[in-house]
């Protein structure tokens, strides 16, 4: 039940509408008694007297009551939806915001489809209960209470007879608890299904290329089949509970009839009372039939709610301290002090990394594949927290400053460019939301992107498609560079990946990047000779450790690993030079 209590906390901001809704339900439930009561008056009072005017009067009142309570029902329905839908809206936003505050390691550990499923499928299950279940529950409780009072006033003994079946109905409800584990499983499997589909869409080209549609169909089918199986089992329980409730209600009606007839014959009860009593009982049972449904919805909401709160309860790994200060405008000094990093208990990705960059310096990181280059740069904007050691920016530990003040002063150009499904202008402006159109254009020019943008039909207003799919790799990258240029950061982090750009633009971009790097502290994962030659310091990384450091010349002289890395690249370029010379000579 803890889950439901937590859900109700989301209802609190709408307490007035909730209170209004409950009041209305109680009012409507009471008013609903009136038609039956007027019916009783017609039969017991007006007809025996043969008074047609009185009949008309009662019927008129009957109609008036109906009109009134249906009007109130309309209001109540709206209020109940108002609360339910808003609670869901808030819950989804809260869940999303919490998701977004999680560190990168959280995203590494959770599949996209899984996370999506929690925000959509799980919240939808909660929504189903909140918007359809709760009002019915209140309605049921109100109806049963009010009718119980009415019935008690009419005839206490007969009410006792009626309530004989109550324990049996309660026992049936207990059966539904057995369905809870099934529902948990279904919610989990729904997420698995989401993963299959999400991965299919993300990898469709590869899947089709390998003709693996049948394989994916089987993956989908396996989960789909399990879901069907679990739901069938769950329905089996419902098949016992739902008609069971009705059975006991019917039994109570039979008992009332028999016991009531006896009392009427005794003369301890009027016929009209018996008829009214029976009709009240039947009306009372109508909402009670829904209890099984409500219970089922509640169980489902709890199973789903658990998963929602599981995310909300996941502590933030990279969390701002309450005492975090706003980082003042940076000079651009970066220092790593004995930084160690590992994912959980996996083998360390960084071991005792220390280096220092003065404002305006360029530090190039060089190393073989998988040596930890990307991990080093990930530590500066605090995508991950160090396992031990410290990362300092202008002397501030990155863990002591607010994330937004830190990250907004760092410009990052990543190897894999990600664009949002917005216009090109919006994607560039993502770097700084208050940039004017001219500033956006200037940034695009500096990134050698302006010309190709103007070639597009809608220019800067062209939608780029999902993940920028409507643009080529090179075009995407140039937009990412423009985005970073617009930030005008003191610290620039560059994962050099100019190779997916064709040569001419590559050249322009290199110039743009050179311009961008001037006067900024730059940490660059270098793949180009010109970059390493210009760097103030080169860090040679191998297996998570800095194995050597120095300038290009120094390293070339003393490091075998560096020579090896350098030669591979230089050799290719030298050969090209030779060949062109050869062709030109011939």
């Amino acid at each position, binding site marked *: 039940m803890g889950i439901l209590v937590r859900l109700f906390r989301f209802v609190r901001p709408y307490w007035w509408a909730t209170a209004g809704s409950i009041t209305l339900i109680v009012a409507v439930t009471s008013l609903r008694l009136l038609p039956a009561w007027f019916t009783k008056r017609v039969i017991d009072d007006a007809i025996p007297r043969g008074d047609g005017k009185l009949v008309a009067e009662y019927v008129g009142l009957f109609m008036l009551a109906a009109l009134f309570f249906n009007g109130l029902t309309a209001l109540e329905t709206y209020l109940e939806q*108002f609360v339910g839908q808003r609670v869901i809206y808030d819950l989804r936003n809260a869940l999303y915001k919490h998701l977004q505050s999680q560190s990168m390691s959280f995203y590494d550990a959770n599949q996209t489809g899984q996370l999506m499923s929690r925000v959509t499928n799980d919240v939808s299950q909660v929504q189903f209960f909140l918007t359809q279940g709760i009002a019915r529950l209140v309605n049921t409780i109100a109806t049963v209470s009010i009718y119980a009072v009415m019935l008690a006033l009419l005839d206490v003994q007969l009410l006792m007879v009626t309530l004989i079946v109550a324990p049996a109905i309660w026992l049936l409800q207990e059966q539904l608890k057995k369905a809870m584990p099934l529902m948990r499983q279904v919610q989990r499997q729904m997420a698995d299904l989401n993963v299959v589909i999400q991965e299919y869409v993300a990898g469709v*080209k590869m899947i089709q290329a*390998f003709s693996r549609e049948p394989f994916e169909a089987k993956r989908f089918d396996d989960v789909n089949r399990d879901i069907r199986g679990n739901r069938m089992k769950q329905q089996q329980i419902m098949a016992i509970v739902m008609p069971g409730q009705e059975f006991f209600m019917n039994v109570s009606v039979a008992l009332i009839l028999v016991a009531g007839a006896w009392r009427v014959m005794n003369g301890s009860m009027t016929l009209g009372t018996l008829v009214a009593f029976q009709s009240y009982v039947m009306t009372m049972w109508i909402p009670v039939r829904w209890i099984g449904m409500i219970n089922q919805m509640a169980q489902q909401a709890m199973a789903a709610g658990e998963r929602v709160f599981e995310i909300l309860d996941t502590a933030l790994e990279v969390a701002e301290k309450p005492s975090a200060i706003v980082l003042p405008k940076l000079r651009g000094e970066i220092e790593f002090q004995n930084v160690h990093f590992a994912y959980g208990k996996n083998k360390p990705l960084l071991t005792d990394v220390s280096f220092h960059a003065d404002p305006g310096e360029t530090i190039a990181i060089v190393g073989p594949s998988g040596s930890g280059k990307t991990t080093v740069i990930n530590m500066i904007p605090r995508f991950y927290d160090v396992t031990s050691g410290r990362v300092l920016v202008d002397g501030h530990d990155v863990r002591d400053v607010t994330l937004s003040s830190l990250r907004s002063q760092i410009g990052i150009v990543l190897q894999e460019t990600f664009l949002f499904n917005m216009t090109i202008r919006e994607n560039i402006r993502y770097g700084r939301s208050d940039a004017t159109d001219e500033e956006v254009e200037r940034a695009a020019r500096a990134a050698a992107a302006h010309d190709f943008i103007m070639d597009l039909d809608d220019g800067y207003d062209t939608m780029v498609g999902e993940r920028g799919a409507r643009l080529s790799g090179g075009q995407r990258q140039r937009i990412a560079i423009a985005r970073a240029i617009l930030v005008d950061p003191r610290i620039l982090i560059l994962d050099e990946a100019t190779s997916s750009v064709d040569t001419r633009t590559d050249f322009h971009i290199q110039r743009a990047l050179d311009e961008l790097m001037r006067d900024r502290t730059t940490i660059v994962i270098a793949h180009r000779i010109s970059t390493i030659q210009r760097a103030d310091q080169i860090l040679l990384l191998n297996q998570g450790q800095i194995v050597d450091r120095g300038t290009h010349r120094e390293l070339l002289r003393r490091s075998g690993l560096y020579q090896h890395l350098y030669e591979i690249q230089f050799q290719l370029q030298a050969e090209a030079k030779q060949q062109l010379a050869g062709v030109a000579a011939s």
Partner: protein
Amino acid sequence: MMMGGGHGFGGGGMMRGGGPGVWAREKAELKTPLGQLLGRIGGVLGEFKKALFWALATLIFAALLQMIPPYATRYVVDHIIPQKNGTMLPAIAVAMILIFGFRYWLMYTSRITVSNISQQFVYAMAKNLFEHVERLSLKFYEREGTGEIISRATSDINVLQQAMQGGMVQAGAGLFNMVAYAIVLLVLDWRLALLVYAGLPLLVGASYTSSELLRVRYMKVQERISAVNGVLAENIVGVRVAKAFAREDESSARFVDRNKENLDANMATAMVQAISGPLIQFIGVASTGLVLWVGATRVMGGSLSVGTLVAFVSYLVQFYSPIDDLIRINATIQQALAAAERVFEFMDERADVVEKPAAIDLGADRPVDGHVTLDDVWFSYIPGIPVLKGVTIDAPPGTMTALVGHTGSGKTTVVNLIPRFYDVDSGHVYVDGRDVKDLTLESLRAHIGVVLQETFLFSTSIRENIRYGRLDATDAEVEAAAREAHAHDFIMALPKGYETNAGESGNLLSRGQRQRLALARAILRDPKILILDEATSDVDTETELLIQQALERVMKGRTVFVIAHRLSTIRKADQICVMDHGELIEKGTHEELLAKGGKYRELYEIQFAGEEESAVAAG
């Protein structure tokens, strides 16, 4: 570093025109008439005709039994009480309980049957949808986007399931009860019954109108959920960028906007529910009041017994009692119908790359050589904007063809046509002299290996990810392929080796390592035709070299198409095709093209100029 620039999975031509994205779907409208929609659902349910018939029969019978209490009441009121003879009462009670017990059993069995049918139905809808969507070409995926596809396969299917689980039995039982009581009313007193019937057109009219309104509005709700899903998928994948630019607020705002639209759409349905539900109920209650008035008048006039009036009113209450439920269920059902329409809409999506009924298997009659020919191929992603303009390329078996050209020149599009990801507008693509349109897709693609620029890894083990290339490969074969792709060593260095989950530990793998896994996957497939779409871009030099070495071995005896930027790769090609704005402008070997002094040489020199500058600085 030469001539790069492939496309995302869209292909460069998509950029113009800006087709409808996920959030471009603004207008909610019902495209399928209700009857047709119900007919299709009925069609899917048709499979279960017999079980359905049995369940319905049981439900009807159970509904009839539910009419016993008022009948018993009437008997007791009219006969037993006036005669003051209670001896029959215990027998009546026992008989009633027995009948209700029997009814319980009936309801139980019919519920089981109906729920089984519902679950089968939902299962089949999901299965058919997924398997149909699988058959659609890349164009469909580019147009619809992640959010829309995921939503229809999960959210819409879920809504169907909810309606099936929560509503069908209740709605069915409720409707039968109403019909049965309608008959009883007629038998009891036809004049009063006609009075009740007179109100029915109003009831049906109000229900129908509100249902139509609800369905349109629910269509919008489902569309909004798609948009929420779309922005969610995008923001989760792009979270690193949002964090890098400290723009989580912006991403958040985008999410909140979609969420708010979903809320508004939901409130629009709430409005209809709030007005229509009570209105329909009022019609029912008002008609009861009318019956009471007319009936009472007739009792006083002597043409009706009190007992009959009491029974009639009591039956009438029973007659209207399912309405409350039905109104609520109807909302769920209307939402389900809207969802069903969306599901059917995808199922009706015509696959544009379709196998001919007479398609033959490549390699069925003779061994596959891997001879690829493009003959005057024209292609456009958006009609009227050709991306390829009359491209002709002949790649004899075992040769290597390199495609070079600026970003957006159509290189990726060319290689996309070989495994028939798209169909040409005109011209032909032949493999071993057979038009790819005459071949079965599976046999065609079975002989083609593709390594893309962005490696997609599934969230299963590394072993399974490699095995994806050929499902029946043994563990030893998987490892051999990994060795050949220079992936074995780094895999063994991972915490769980080949059992490491590739999806979850995506960050443990560098880009170069992922690339080598993709290569191992292609090697395992052992294809006659190998397509390398920028397979070696964006990796560091050492990895590049490793991949190069692996590739050289792998390329032997295969027809290779390569889109690459590395000179070393391109130079070895048997022919280089220079693409420019969708046209093939130069074709020849490296030496020939350099000597020719055309576009290729221009590209080459620009690159060289860049590298020379570096070299000078290095010197």
